[in-house]
């Protein structure tokens, strides 16, 4: 089955956090719980212009998700289409997934006492709708959803024309979610 992919081209991100609010509007996560979060990276480097960019942190929907493996309640699962989902109803709030996620992409809702993460808007995707953060809200057009090869090609094309002088960052900036 076709895999859904979310690609964030961090190099183009301005840090405007529109995606964070688009996610709030869609998923209603409470204050303090971010399913997608824009983080600063830098400034760093000595001499010359410091490197400074934003990195958008969101669940990677890993091939073999360690969070699912450690969940004692079986609340985290992976669908055939690649979406790794966390079922808040089934979650017992042990926090094992939060600790195990190397990307720190799982939040904890202190009020409900449950973990929460990006389910790639499966309730939209299943109806042929694009996830809220990727549905053309981003003024930098840096969040992509769709067929993996096509997106990577599109991003690579954009980078060719982009005048940015941070080629050393280019490859590591892209976050692919499959």
């Amino acid at each position, binding site marked *: 089955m076709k895999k859904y992919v979310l690609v964030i081209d961090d190099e183009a991100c*301005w840090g405007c956090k*529109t995606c964070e*609010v688009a996610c709030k509007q869609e998923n209603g996560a409470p204050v303090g719980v971010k399913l997608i979060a824009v983080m600063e990276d830098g400034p*760093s480097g000595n001499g010359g212009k410091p490197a400074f960019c934003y990195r958008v942190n969101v669940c990677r929907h890993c091939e073999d998700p360690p969070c699912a493996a450690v969940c004692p309640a079986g609340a985290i699962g992976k669908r055939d289409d690649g979406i790794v989902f966390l079922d808040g109803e089934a979650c017992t709030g042990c926090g094992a997934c939060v600790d195990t996620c190397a990307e720190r992409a799982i939040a904890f809702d202190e009020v409900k006492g449950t973990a929460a993460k990006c389910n790639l808007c499966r309730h939209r995707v299943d109806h042929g709708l694009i996830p809220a953060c990727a549905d053309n809200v981003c*003024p930098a057009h840096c969040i992509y959803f769709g067929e993996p090869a096509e997106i990577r090609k599109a991003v690579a094309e954009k980078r060719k024309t982009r005048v940015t002088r941070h080629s050393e960052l280019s490859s590591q900036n892209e976050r692919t979610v499959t």
Partner: protein
Amino acid sequence: MPEFMYANIEREMERYGYDAVVKSHCRMCHGGCGVLVYVKDGKAARIAGDPRCPINHGTLCSKGLASAQLAYHPERLTYPVKRVGPKGSGRWERISWDEALDTIAARILGYKESCGAESIVFGYGTGRENEAVIYRIANLLGSPNVLTAGHFCYGPRIATSIITCGTNPIIDYDHFPKCIMMWGNNVTISNPDEYKGEPFSVALEAGARLIVVDPRLTRPAARADIWLQLRPGTDAALALGMLNVIVNEALYDREFVERYTYGWDEFVERVNEYPPERVEAISWVPREKIRAAARLFAATKPAAVQWGVAIEQQINCADNDRLLMFLMGLTGNIDAPGGQVLYKTPLIVNVGRFGAHHLLPPEQAAKRLGGERFRLANRFAIINPKAVWDAILEEKPYPVKMLFFISSNPVLTRANAREVYRALEKVDFMAVADFFLTPTAELADIVLPAATWLEMDYIGDYWKRHGYILPRRKTVQVGECRSDHEMLNDLAHRIGQGEYWWDTFEGGLDYILSPLGITWREFKEMDYIRGEVKYRKYREKGFSTPTRKFELYSTVLEKMGYDPLPRHREAPESPASAPDLYREYPYILITGARQPGFFHTENRQLPWLRELHPDPLVEIHPATAAKEGIKEGEWVIIESPRGKVRQKARLFAGIDPRVVAAQHAWWYPENKDPGHGWDESNINILTDNAYEGCDPAMGATNVRTLLCRIYPEKAEAGDRT
């Protein structure tokens, strides 16, 4: 599942069971983005960008997406109230619209009779597309005093562009500038009027070179080919230095200079006072970088300057604007495709005409506060705020008795906030229209519940200079809230202006559109209207200035008694202008860097947006922080000769160690004391508003660069014990 496509309206409707979708036009900032509002059970349930809008192409920002959270906020004022306790007591009582407007009308007529119409000051904050009705009611009343942000925000761009080249040059992003110089703003997270982050992003993706002028490292600065990290307040010197390079290396457009400019020789003499070596000493920008930026900007065609408000909130406001226009003009980019275009608005009754400036009697116009001092501002019906506070506090040159502020929160947004607060405490009568009981509204006598953009019909981007107008369609009603246009239309009837107004404001919209031969109801069915786009119109008609030329040497400023050529002036408080003070206050303080999600004092009560910035932050270089014993995330005190406030330290290597950058407009809606913490973190407690420190022509208050000291709050607490 079938293929995915952006903004799939049909599936959204089906999936969520919405009742309707309304195309409208957002105004969470100055306006400008096309939106789709999905409605369910009579309420706005989801906000999305309109992919067919030529401004934002379907994208939005965090503020726009949070619009429904504003509209339905539980603390929102949804009916008129009158104060029943002393000022600042927080005791309010619900009243009817009739009682509210009759009370305001009686006060207006009473003060006009006893003290003259000039004793009544109308006001708004930043442009919220209500300026046309506010000026109209004031001018028809005979009051020359409308207090806006216009002295130091956008008004200067309008005034200086009219006297230089006829109208405000707007970047032609549709034709992809090949070089963009972003000067003192960050269009990716805020909206300097016509411009949006989306087309800027697209231009960069298409390969535009980027120069950024900013004392702080922003992401655009980090992405730029050249970042000019200038000493705050030295923009004019830097621009003069770049012009010096362009002139002396003959990088300018010779034909444009010879045929279409006025005052070239005098201008060359002036720029020769600013060689890059001297400019380096003034601005801290290395001469080689000045040269490199000038060469890149002048050699790349088309090129554009992405400008904004920071350069205007300085003593050098008008000259900063003019100098950036000179950079556009001399490089041949004015009115060029992909450069900066003097767009024509559609054929409508324009804002100036609607504002009825021509109906203000000359003898009343002559009474405009500060008009003799700030003569360029006066010509554009703009006043300096201190002139109003002085007229209230000192009753000079005459007493101001009444204020009517619409979408304005001056105790937070105007300089020398304690003086502003004293004036609002003293004024005889004050009416406010706003969404919430803000710290300013808490000092009012009557507060009216204002409609958000979701609740009004209006012509979006009416006052903009990009040539578009777009319908803003009323989607919902909240409580008894009314649009600024409707409430003033109603009030106008109660003060005897009925013949100039309409039964409902739909009549006003029809009037604006009448030259096009369409009505509001017809316009409502359209996506947008744009004026005819033509390039290099000056080749046929010249520029709309007294000399018909692009005025490097301003004949208008000369007639007003000002230096006709731009120059660098030191900020009133800088290491160079105030060395003694600098020893006591050893850091340069800059204020007002924008935060995505907030619009000046707004949105701090909206959970989705406050979550982005829970606390006010002051940026300090790590080396400076170490020297002052300040740690990341710790509350610090920032102090100037006017007072002190607290913000949280953010250690940030993207700023010069000699500079600290504080956020502006902070208050705490969650603080239920009627002051709502207005003086806790409000950076305008520190800023000064003395006339001598304002731009001599525009009266722009310098709120952007001053001197301060900074130290940990706990050190202060320790001192007291």
